[in-house]
């Protein structure tokens, strides 16, 4: 086991626009991940999800991608066959996609989907697996687990779907987990207990976690390190507990835009996006 779990160097991702011209969505992105909790924050559309998807190998079909290095635990991902990548994805790497309902199988009850995830890695009997699923659903604070077990994805609430996705990834115990806005639909009390479970697993398994989130308070609290993205680039890297001392005007602006419980009711400050940020 090395200290570097994943490494991306000079990642570029582009798409053709309606006139067939290639438009970059991620540019010159480099990052190194140890056995740590790395937060990625940044503007909507800045390339956070694409970066995560490039690492686990689930980019959308029209994506043009290149990188100097794309390495997971010593394995050069660009040299892997698609079979090898699929195998990594099912075992050592996992990703919780941003739209949970969209990534669950719409025609299979959610309990069965977690059982499948569980039995891939643990080879246990059906009855045992079902009990394990009840337990993990309870752990993510889902009430009435026997009812929920039988529901289809369109029959669970937004926050329940997120917790089901988290449960499915956690039972696999990957070495690297990329969680794309995993708790954006959860009320704070449930969010805290879900994060605690993640935290325990990160420590127990000594795994690496990339947490993509727009929730600055959460990242500040939960992560070790943060990357700030803007327009396809990393514009700042910080220790998570120093997030509020950010130097880049984009990050500072972001911190200013947040409403607060006791704040003014006038229009919220908005960012003045400086074209120089792109240099």
């Amino acid at each position: 086991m090395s200290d570097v779990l994943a490494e991306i160097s000079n990642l570029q991702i582009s798409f053709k626009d309606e006139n067939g011209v290639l438009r970059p969505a991620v540019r010159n992105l480099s990052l190194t991940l140890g056995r740590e909790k790395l937060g990625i924050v940044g503007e909507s559309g800045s390339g956070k999800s694409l970066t995560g998807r490039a690492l686990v190998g689930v980019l959308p079909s029209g994506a043009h991608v290149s990188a100097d290095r794309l390495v997971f635990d010593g394995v050069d991902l660009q040299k892997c066959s698609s079979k090898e990548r699929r195998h990594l994805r099912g075992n050592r790497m996992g990703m919780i996609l941003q739209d949970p309902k969209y990534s669950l199988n719409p025609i299979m009850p959610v309990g069965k989907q977690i059982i499948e995830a569980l039995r891939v890695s643990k080879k246990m009997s059906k009855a045992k697996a079902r009990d394990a699923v009840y337990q993990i659903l309870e752990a993510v604070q889902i009430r009435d687990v026997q009812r929920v077990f039988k529901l289809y994805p369109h029959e669970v609430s937004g926050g329940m779907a997120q917790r089901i996705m988290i449960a499915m990834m956690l039972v696999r115990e990957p070495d690297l987990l990329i969680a794309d806005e995993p708790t954006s639909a959860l009320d704070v009390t449930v969010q805290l207990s879900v994060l605690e479970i993640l935290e325990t697993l990160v420590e127990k398994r000594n795994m690496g976690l990339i947490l993509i989130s727009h929730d600055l308070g959460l990242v500040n609290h939960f992560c070790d390190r943060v990357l700030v993205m803007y327009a396809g680039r990393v514009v700042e890297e910080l220790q998570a507990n120093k997030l509020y001392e950010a130097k880049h005007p984009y990050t500072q602006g972001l911190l200013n835009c947040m409403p607060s419980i006791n704040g003014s009711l006038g229009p919220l400050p908005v960012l003045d996006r400086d074209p120089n940020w792109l240099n």
Partner: protein
Amino acid sequence: MSTKMINIKDLCVWFGEGQQRTQVLKNINLQIARGESFGLVGESGSGKSTILRTAMGLVEDYSGEISIDGINTRTGDYKALIRCAQMLFQDPYASLHPRFTVGQAITEVMKINAIDNHQQKMVDLLLSIGLTAEHQYRYPHELSGGQRQRVALARSLALEPDVLLLDEPTSALDASIQAEMLNLLNKLKQSLGLTYIIVSHDIAVVSYMCDRFAVMSQGKVVEILSREQLRSGDIQCEYTQKLIAASEY
């Protein structure tokens, strides 16, 4: 004409059939005034989305009564109801047809509603949500999560409704774009007198946007608070206290 824009009386909702039939909403009563912004907060799975969906006529198994601008959800004119009220779904994919481009998704609803000059209005809407005219050619799956959420918002604004039921409208947005969207919603409300129900798990957003809000837990409204009560800490219910304490980290 009632002064209340939205009236929810003794609403109970069930899902499932036979042995499986489960009650998920229990005796919900909410009266929301014309031009008010009303918040819904509370536990995940407590029934917030279900209230909105039932108000839009998307749920069948319910008792009690709901009316929006005097139109009864069960017995009233459905076309008039959706002209008056639009819902932004929590899952943006649910608001957007997968085979319609962004431009089509927005102009289509305008055509149905005989709103003219739709091409120009569509582009204006895209600009107002921080996208560009070029985004009209994209399909929903070719957008980022937050872009998709904004397009779904633009689509619900395209019908120029009087009432907007917004289910977690900024949950996929970073603080800067969220601020722009909230400012836009407030501006529309001031100029057009819109009425909002806003579901959010973010108490700060609710405190900023909403005059009053209901706190939900396990299918029930446990407390209704005004912004003043929230801000002065005049809170009775233990669950609400816990929720607010946890928001302050």
